[in-house]
């Protein structure tokens, strides 16, 4: 199968996908309600789409094409409210977070769809361990070469994205000591990690054709890269974010990506090189392990600095672009959280420190996701 042509899209347009957890309201373990949620959600007129994911306790929602983070928030609010309404009807709850803290992977069931069955046969238990939840952000690129250039520029900021979105410190009932343990599960897949260093679509097509010739891949869907081009949408898709606990944070992350994209496309601040990837895996590990407390190795200079400082420095660099794109509120939300040294992983750990019961932490996280929807003080039982 050959690589499909890169479609035209509006530069810096946005699309956000969120993989969500479905939990029961009894012991707050994952609950296999995807099919029922899809049925109920299909009856509500919404922007974007709602689709199944690999296992039956997951659901993926996505916005339509947006042009600002405000528009993203508007669409996500509609989708979130519909999710909460449908979940209430089924007596379950919807939760963000990159992992479910205490679910047992072997209890998961593969969603009944041909592609998921094929993947399950190929990857065995890895497919059930793929019950992890991420946010994907699509950013529109005017042409294929700009897309690849933006992709490789963006890869220097992968640690930023990981640390800002990290919300998966617990796996199988244990604190992993990572802020984002989710990405360790992604790394188990053979076609995960970084995209090959190709700065033009022609070079990329050669690479794709060679891979297709080996029979290892059939389409772009088979690559689980941290950032991958999405030719059918005319976008690049950033896939390293854990699903945040709130739609406000998910929106802010999209606004941050959009502002960075604007900086890259309009100011051409630097040229990516293959050597950027010398420190890529190390930086990625640092961000997963330590979150905002990570050390960041600058790929250009080799200098070491706290990731927190580098994020704040970047925010200052893109402020003008954020303002122009009406994404200042997004940057403000993230900057405040960095200054307070606070991300969702920390919130989860603090709640667990207080409650000593991961199920209660999930209940409170579900309450947090509801936001203003029919909020019942003291929890919702």
């Amino acid at each position, binding site marked *: 199968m050959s690589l499909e042509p890169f479609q035209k899209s509006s530069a810096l347009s946005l699309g956000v996908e969120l993989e969500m957890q479905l939990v029961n309201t*009894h012991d707050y373990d994952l*609950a296999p309600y995807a099919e029922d949620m899809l049925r109920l959600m299909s009856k509500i007129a919404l922007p974007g789409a709602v689709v199944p994911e690999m296992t039956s306790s997951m659901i993926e929602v996505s916005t339509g094409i947006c042009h600002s983070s405000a528009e993203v928030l508007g669409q996500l609010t509609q989708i979130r409210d519909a999710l909460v309404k449908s979940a209430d009807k*089924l007596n379950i709850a919807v939760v963000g977070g990159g992992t479910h803290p205490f679910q047992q992977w072997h209890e998961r069931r593969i969603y009944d769809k041909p592609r998921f069955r094929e993947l399950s046969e190929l990857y065995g238990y890895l497919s059930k361990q793929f019950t992890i939840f991420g946010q994907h952000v699509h950013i529109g690129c005017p042409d294929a070469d700009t897309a690849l250039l933006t992709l490789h520029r963006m890869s220097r900021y992968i640690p930023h994205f990981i640390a800002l979105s990290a919300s998966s410190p617990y796996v199988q009932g244990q604190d992993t000591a990572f802020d984002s343990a989710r990405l360790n599960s992604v790394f188990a897949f053979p076609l995960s990690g970084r995209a090959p260093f190709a700065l033009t679509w022609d070079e990329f097509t050669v690479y794709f054709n060679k891979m297709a010739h080996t029979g290892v891949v059939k389409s772009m869907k088979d690559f689980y890269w941290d950032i991958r081009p999405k030719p059918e949408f005319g976008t690049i898709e950033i896939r390293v974010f854990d699903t945040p606990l709130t739609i406000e944070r998910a929106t802010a992350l999209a606004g941050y990506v959009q502002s960075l994209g604007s900086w890259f496309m309009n100011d051409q601040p630097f040229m990516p090189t293959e050597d950027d990837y010398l420190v890529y895996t190390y930086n990625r590990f640092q961000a997963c392990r330590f979150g905002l407390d990570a050390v960041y190795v600058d790929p250009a200079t080799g200098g070491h600095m706290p990731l927190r400082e580098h994020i704040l420095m970047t925010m200052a660099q893109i402020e003008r672009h954020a303002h122009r794109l009406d994404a200042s509120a997004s940057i403000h939300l993230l900057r405040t959280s960095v200054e307070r040294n606070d991300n969702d992983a920390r919130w989860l750990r603090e709640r667990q420190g207080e409650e000593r*019961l991961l199920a209660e932490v999930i209940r409170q996280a579900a309450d947090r996701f509801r936001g203003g929807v029919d909020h019942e003080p003291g929890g*919702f039982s």
Partner: protein
Amino acid sequence: MNEIMAIWAEWIKPSAGLPTVQWSILLALAAAAGHLVNRYTGLPKVIGYSAVGTFAGLAGFTGAAWPLQGTGLFLLELGVAVVLFEAGGRIPLRWFRHNPMVLVQSLAESTLTYFGVYWLLDLMGVHGVVAESLALVAMAASPAVLSRVAIDTRAAGPVTERALVLSTLSTLYALTLCSARAGMLPRGEAGLSDTLLPVLVVLGLSVVVAAVLALVLRTALRVMSPTSENTAILLLSLIAAGAALASNFGGSAPLAALLGGMLLKQLNPRPWSWPRQMGTASSMLTMLMFVLVSVVAAQADWSRPVASLVMGLVVVRMIAKVAGVSLGNAGSGTSWRQGLWVGCAMSPMSSVALLLVSQYVAASSSIGGQVAVIALPAILLMEMLGAVLATVALYRAGECSRPWSPVVRGASTGPVHES
């Protein structure tokens, strides 16, 4: 069998008394049978427990005399109370606000079951009061059997959850109405309309015990961890005390436990995590309950007229449950197919039904006796057949974590988890 028992009683003088030895051996056999049934057929363990109890009952085992009284009755009440407390805790009242059709399903299936069974028994010439009593007993599905089936098949999902909730609600109605109706029996054959006051009395007294139980537990949970073993012991002990006291005050022990679970869920919305901690103690109590039910139920007299009445009751009850659930299915969030499986999963009829019959017998030996003649075989049949039907329903609904595959020695293709 009795001769063997007599010889045995002469031969050994155990410290805890012969009945203790007999029950211990019976439970050991039941545990082994449950395990083997589950391992080699994939059916739930409760079928093995019931089979051993049935065999013992048919063989004339005298460890559980009918009508139940004393320790036997208390253990049954305690077992039912523990199960119903947990089942009550699965019912968040806010769900009915968001999805009132679940309540419609519940009321429809219980009402249809009552009128369906009453109509059939009346048609087959059963006396009015007896038919009415049996119709009330038939309303109660068994959350005890269903929850054991769900555990053994590792089932989870909308059908499992809804069947458990509807079974619990049907049990709530049956416990309230039967307790009140049984209380009226000695005063003559009053109609259903005359039982309103007794219903309020039973419900009111049970609510008081339930509220005390829930408040004490909520207070305890403010300082104790729900995952602690001590909290589980505290919970079991309080349910036992509640069970012993509720009937004494004129309420119903299982009803008080069920309402206590529901109230605690409202007062304390935190996750329900102690059933896992109760573990083996709770499982043994539940197993004892199933064995006791089948030992007692097997003592029933199986004649041809009784058999046809029992078969008729079982079939009409099942049709009524499926029809009732389907009637309220539109707009309830489940598909028609799921509605059908929910109705099937509500087939089991077990310990609660036995308790209700026991109440009738205690209230009036003549009417109670007539009720028991038909109810006991029906309970035995539906403890086993109901468990099979519920298993099939959960598998067909696609809610079990693995396909139905009995383990065959030497043919295992993957890791097997003991449970």
